[in-house]
């Protein structure tokens, strides 16, 4: 494996982390729009906190997919054609999620607004759940031929690990959304969000334990990378506890940081566990290795140069867009107005 191959494996991991940390908050706020809110004004207040950002955050997923295509096309081809229907459902939920914000905003009748707010919540729940399933289905040994074509059966996609993975990612996104919202809210909503997050954290521990058990039985993470898998699992529990504790103590920034770290460790667990493979076949000789799925050194060099030029600029304006738009909203801004979230 060359340095650039390793580098791009890490970059793809980083892009998925950024996607789940940033857009995860958007999914979570989308869920909270019906879970936490009782009235349209409250829903609007929650959606308002993410509405300037969700579109840009979603680009991390597109960038991750594009980077996989550019730097590891054989992985991209096998994974996406193999988990066809799961990925299709991810796309459908992301499509609904994207238009629901906009349609909710332009709808005029309370019924129409309510329907699109439900669409926001349902699609924001489905998307992370299905993505969680995809991430945990793709780390298990799959039926794959020697050309890298995957022929999945139902139980390759739906099994205890993938369902737990779906639940775990959905829960992490919900916490993330609530933390993000508390940072953008004033008054009663801020405390209701924190209190909901605090209560929901209790569910994280059993899910994490069950997840670790399922991981042991359904993947070869513990055989291949015992030390790093155990370390990351411990870190996940610790950061969850940190997030829980700081939520209870109303340390909002700390809670957000802690949960972001949990998300990062979960994605790292997957990428470290797979390493040096990208897909594991039931017949081990057919497994795909990073060194075999990559683009040519020339293409890797080209995209690396482009990334090195663009990343600092991108980071700068991305952070700037968050900073200049940071504001704590009051519920009163959203009462008695037909304006919607924006």
């Amino acid at each position: 494996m060359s340095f650039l191959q390793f580098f791009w494996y890490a970059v793809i991991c980083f892009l998925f982390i950024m996607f789940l940390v940033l857009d995860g908050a958007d999914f979570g706020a989308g869920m909270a729009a019906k879970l936490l809110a009782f009235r349209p004004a409250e829903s609007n207040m929650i959606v308002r906190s993410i509405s300037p950002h969700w579109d840009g955050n979603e680009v991390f997923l597109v960038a991750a997919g594009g980077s996989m295509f550019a730097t590891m096309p054989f992985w991209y081809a096998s994974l996406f054609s193999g988990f066809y229907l799961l990925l299709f459902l991810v796309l459908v939920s992301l499509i609904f999620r994207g238009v629901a914000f906009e349609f909710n905003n332009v709808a005029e009748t309370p019924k129409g607004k309510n329907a699109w707010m439900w669409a926001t919540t349902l699609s924001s729940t489905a998307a992370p759940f299905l993505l969680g399933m995809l991430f945990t289905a793709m780390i298990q040994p799959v039926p794959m031929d020697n050309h890298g074509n995957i022929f999945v059966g139902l139980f390759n996609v739906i099994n205890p690990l993938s369902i737990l993975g779906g639940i775990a990612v959905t829960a992490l996104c919900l916490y993330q959304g609530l933390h993000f919202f508390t940072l953008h809210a004033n008054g009663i909503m801020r405390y209701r969000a924190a209190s909901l997050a605090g209560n929901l954290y209790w569910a994280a521990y059993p899910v994490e334990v069950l997840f670790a058990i399922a991981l042991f039985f359904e993947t070869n993470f513990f055989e291949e990378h015992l030390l790093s898998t155990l370390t990351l699992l411990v870190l996940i529990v610790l950061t969850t506890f940190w997030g829980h504790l700081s939520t209870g103590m109303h340390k909002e920034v700390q809670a957000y940081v802690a949960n972001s770290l949990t998300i990062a460790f979960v994605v790292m667990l997957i990428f470290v566990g797979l390493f040096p493979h990208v897909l594991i076949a039931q017949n081990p000789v057919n497994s795909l290795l990073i060194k075999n799925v990559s683009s040519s050194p020339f293409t890797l060099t080209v995209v690396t140069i482009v990334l090195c030029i663009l990343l600092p600029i991108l980071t700068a304006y991305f952070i700037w867009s968050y900073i200049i738009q940071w504001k704590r909203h009051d519920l009163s801004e959203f009462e008695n107005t037909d304006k919607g979230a924006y």
Partner: protein
Amino acid sequence: MFNFALNVLPFARFQFAMTTIFHYFFIPMSIGIGLSVCIMETMYAITKNKIYQTMTKFWGRIFLLAFAVGVVTGLIQEFQFGMNWSQYSRFMGDIFGAPLAIEALLAFFLESTFLGVWMFTWDKFKPAWHALMIWLVFLASAASALWILTANSFMQHPVGYKLTSSGHVEMTSFKALLTNQQLWYEFPHVISSCIVTGSFIVAGTSAWMIFRKKSVGFFRKSMRLGLVLGIVGCLGAVTSGDLQSGYLIKDQPMKFAASEGIYNHTENPAPWSVFQLTNTKTHQEYGKIEIPYMLSFLSYHKFSGSVAGMDEANRALHKQYDGKFGKNMDYSLNVNVLFFAFRLMAAGFGGLTFIALLGLWFSRRRKNTIVKQKWLTFILFLATFAPFVINTGGWLFTELGRDPWVVYGLLPIAKAVSPSTSPASVIFTIIVYFLLFVTLASCMVFYAKKSLYKGPESIDKTIDYDNDDPFSKEAFNK
């Protein structure tokens, strides 16, 4: 499982065509309306006239609707290469992936971040700075078109690559990809047609509101801006299209001959067939209407010169590729589709230019003479939909004309499809996508119409929109 020996290929192709055509309804809309909005806000920043701010916000709403549907349908594009065309992705990943990744890193981040800033910072920035945001959004979306067309151009005209021993292509020159001649004919053509699309939506829907006698002053201003931009776009599209077809004669003679419906080498000078129906089996032509000299002129910009027919092009293709791909490759194209798609573009851009000129002429005076020309405002309204048909025709022309290749001369379409995907999954997803698209399109049209009918009054009540000149005392007499 069932085994009806169904081939996945036609379904995968149909799905690609359907999702891409639908996606491409909204891309030119958002790029085109985006440019109009940029110009409106720039006018506001310069003149400080409130009516331009209202215009920006008003058309901005419609822009946002188009943008939202464009973004979400674009997600499908990013992933379906892997899903349905995994063999293609393996063959082409080394070249195709890079522009796609750069498109995301360079263009998508920029446009969505600055759109988010633009939407929520009306009071935070001075008008000029705020206008800069929307310009960045427009430039980024134009840049994304450049990158995706870089990838598309390679499929039409491969450059800067080598074939490896394992049978896929590898990039040897990134510069060659970016300086691909095909790209620099295609990109201006696509951007021009995007401008046409957006401008005619602004102009056509404004004409409709004038037809309904609502806020005539406001919509007259919007319509004139749309028409001027529309003419600029049409001229750009025709010029770049003309240059492109001159290039096509040399680069893909088969596609060119098919678009003209000629099988045999033409006489010199060559006549241009305005209309004909072709039987592709017997090579017979029906109902042919010809203009003498015209094809020579269109091809070479002079009144002499002959053009090779499909039979000749077919022999050349067999000679060139039989060694590698065998004698059984079928190079024949869908002549009738290509023939009419080409004429649709030519007639479409010509017709739109003509009615745009009429629209400008009849709305030239400050007093609302245009209100009385109901026939014209109605035709202008119908013209709103024309660019969608023209764009689709253009893409069908380019992409069907690439048959039987997915990458010209390198990979036949039949070898690009995913081997692991079952026809059942593709048919299922086609049905769901179709239902989804119908829902999205209806909601989008429904809400765009609502926005339009709410009128500029819903944004700023303090301006008199019936009058052309908000500062004059002379109110328009209904």
